[in-house]
């Protein structure tokens, strides 16, 4: 970083960037949405402050406890916790949303050191830095209280560890940002993230199976991992402090030196990435595309679905194209099976441990189907959200909204039907084939719930649309109206289902539930048709609002 000095020009640039960020913050408060978001952020800040203070005191107390009890090796656990939080939290919280567009800064006559510092400082202003630093401070104080002679040394080691964490988080973010620029790599990264989340769900059930006994495999893994752990930054920082407390200064110095080497290496990697950005690398899809001419292919004709009109078939095909190209959606559709698998892998002995399906496997099919329906409500309640500017076509084309909604509803109903069949098959393999009366009651119940959800969903899709991207994970929040309406409808559906099941139980026959659900489905169908017939008028009346929401950049 030769030449890194604060010239008056650089100071002016930093001040200008700080001022523009402040103005952006203030301007966001001009509308109600921005103010509400600010209130939410205020609550979030309080939460983070509590976590910072509480975590700091807890980690300090634990450090004090480990040192006074002579368990110095355990310090490494505390540092690993801080390290993993510091690195994983920003990736999970922001990687799949909007990224900071650094190219905007490159228009200005900013030197590379200035650019580096701006990216480092403004990028590091996030909760993980705040919490991580606070927790390390707590650790240093805890160590100092346990043995005041080592406070200074611990503070130096932990300061280096904090710098390493800040640089590493920035480096990870800079590389993730590079991958997120392109749609394909963004979706691959999203898929990896989702698989990681799914795998995470299995930890609980697997631990509950393995955790009760001393498993030789686990011991073997622990033995293998331990030396590697000590060679990594958290292990080295812990080693530097523990060795010093033991009076072994040469190993402490070596561990600290190695920690500094790590920091330097991370700094250099970050430097490579930021320098590439600074020199104006272009990662757009167009640039990445091969220059070799591609072969022309015969145009595949659109779907021909007997019994439905051309426009409805076209919308059905378009919906399936959209869903099949959305990694997040495809993974979401797998979730009912994953949930059943989690229940299947969970402890099979006690209902008190939360695995009620182990004791009532007959409920597996209804539970899986209900979950599939719940997942689908995300699509049903905002069915124009992913169309974005394409919504304009629906308003300029000679197709009524009745047909448009029919096509979309048909697609969603087919997805649910596929899901329910998949759940049925999964239940057969994981538990036992559901009884015919339970199958029929579930199918009629799902049919009623689907019709009711489609009715309300069609209204909400027109009244409270929200632009979403099927290709992106996270930040896909529905409008507040939709969220509250969805909660109300689900409460009503589950309430009615519960009453129906109680009635069926009172009469001692599940078949009664199927009949009641069939009647409810008939009533819901009347409501559905009524809404569908009025959809055109409502959509035309609300076109300004709909297009303003869906067509905004």
């Amino acid at each position, binding site marked *: 970083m030769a030449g890194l000095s604060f010239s008056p020009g650089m100071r002016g640039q930093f001040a200008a960037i700080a001022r523009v960020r402040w103005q952006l913050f203030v301007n966001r408060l001009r509308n109600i949405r921005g103010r509400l978001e600010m209130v939410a952020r205020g609550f979030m800040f309080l939460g983070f402050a509590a976590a910072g203070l509480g975590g700091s005191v807890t980690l300090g107390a634990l450090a004090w406890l480990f040192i006074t009890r002579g368990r110095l090796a355990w310090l490494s656990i505390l540092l690993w916790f801080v390290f993993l939080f510091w690195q994983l939290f920003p990736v999970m919280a922001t990687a799949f949303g909007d990224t900071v567009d650094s190219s905007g800064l490159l228009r200005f006559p900013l030197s590379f050191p200035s650019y580096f510092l701006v990216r480092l400082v403004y990028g590091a202003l996030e909760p993980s830095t705040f919490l991580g630093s606070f927790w390390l401070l707590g650790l240093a104080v805890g160590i100092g209280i346990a043995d005041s002679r080592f406070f200074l040394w611990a503070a130096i080691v932990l300061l280096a560890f904090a710098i390493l964490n800040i640089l590493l988080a920035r480096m990870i973010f800079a590389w993730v940002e590079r991958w997120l620029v392109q*749609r394909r790599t963004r979706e691959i990264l999203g898929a990896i993230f989702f698989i990681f989340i799914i795998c995470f769900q299995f930890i609980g059930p697997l631990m509950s199976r393995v955790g009760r006994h001393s498993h030789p495999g686990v011991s073997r893994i622990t033995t293998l991992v331990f030396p590697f752990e000590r060679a990594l930054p958290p292990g080295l920082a812990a080693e530097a402090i523990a060795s010093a407390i033991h009076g072994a200064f040469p190993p402490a110095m070596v561990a600290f030196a190695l920690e500094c080497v790590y920091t330097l290496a991370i700094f250099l990697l970050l430097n490579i990435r930021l320098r590439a950005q600074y020199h104006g690398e272009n990662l757009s*899809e*167009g640039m990445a*595309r091969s220059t070799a*001419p*591609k*072969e*022309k*292919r*015969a*145009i*595949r*004709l*659109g779907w*021909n679905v007997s019994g439905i009109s*051309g*426009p409805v*078939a*076209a*919308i059905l*095909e*378009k919906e399936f*194209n*959209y869903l099949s*190209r*959305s990694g997040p959606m495809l993974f979401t559709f797998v979730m009912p099976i994953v949930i059943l698998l989690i229940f299947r892998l969970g402890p099979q002995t006690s209902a008190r441990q939360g695995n009620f399906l182990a004791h009532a496997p007959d409920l597996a099919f209804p539970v899986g189907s209900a979950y599939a329906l719940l997942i689908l409500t995300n699509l049903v309640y905002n069915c124009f959200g*992913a*169309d*974005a*500017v*394409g*919504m*304009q*076509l629906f*308003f*300029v*084309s*000679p*197709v*009524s909204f009745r047909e448009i909604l029919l096509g979309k509803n048909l697609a969603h109903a087919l997805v649910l039907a596929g899901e329910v069949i998949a759940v049925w098959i999964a239940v057969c393999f994981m538990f036992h084939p559901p009884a015919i009366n339970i199958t029929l009651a579930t199918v009629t119940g799902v049919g009623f719930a689907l019709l009711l959800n489609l009715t309300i969903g069609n209204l909400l899709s027109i009244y409270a649309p929200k632009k979403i991207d*099927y*290709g992106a994970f996270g930040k896909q929040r529905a409008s507040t109206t939709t969220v509250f309406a969805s909660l109300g409808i689900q409460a009503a559906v589950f309430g009615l289902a519960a009453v129906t099941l109680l009635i069926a139980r009172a009469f001692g026959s599940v078949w009664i539930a199927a009949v009641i659900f069939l009647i409810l489905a008939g009533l819901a169908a009347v409501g559905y048709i009524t809404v569908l017939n009025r959809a055109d008028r409502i959509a*035309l*009346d609300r*076109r*300004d609002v709909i*297009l303003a929401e869906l*067509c905004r950049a």
Partner: protein
Amino acid sequence: MDAPAIATQGLTRRFGDLVAVQDVNLSVAPGQFFGFLGPNGAGKSTTIKMLTGLLAASSGSIQVLGLDLAKNPVEVKRQIGVVPEGLALFGRLTGAEYLNFVGRMYGLDRETAGKRTAELLDFMQLADQPKTLVTDYSHGMQKKLALAAAVIHGPRILFLDEPFEGVDAIASGTLKAMLQRMIARGATIFLTSHVLEIVERLCSHLAIIHKGRLVAQGSLEELRAGVEGQAAAALAGASPGESPSAPGEKLALEEIFLRIVGSTRRSDQELSWLG
């Protein structure tokens, strides 16, 4: 005489207290290449949105091919093609899928939609990217695709909002040739553009909107004559050095436009610190 292809009576649109378009009476004859001009924020996009059904009018009426848009929206939409401001594309479809989809939305059968899709992709030089999603197209490619979608059903009237913005010179030439061929076959084109050279070269008739009001309408020659007549009248009481144009030289559309909207270039105002 044929009914106008597009006619509006007292067309008005308010956004709260702001009157974006006020009492606009437009008349576009069938077969005209009609340019709709105006400075930024004049009400061009609002007007075109109302004409195509993307925005409701606060008051006034719109007749398209003799049909009332408010009463026969579906019938009107069947006869028009639109390239709106946002292009109305579906990002996660391929170009071929999108055109096929639009064709079928306009009531074409599968075979016809497929055949026209192939022809249009070839014509627009988009056929060599069969698997590329629309979201990954460049802006110019998206514009060409939107135009292809607007004509796939063979509309009698084509509404184009800034069709040449972001399109390269080669594609622009292709588009102009296609639009002129449509006019030759009797279609009507209603176009807004800020590129006055293109409008001057393509359009036979023009309307100029300024601060929400229609301030001029007619053929280019009529507009020119009007401006020159006004200038000549003003000249009678002005200094002898001033002239609407050099003798024998026609006023360019840019000059006509500037005079009608009452604006002057600010070249005479100095920014002394600029090198």
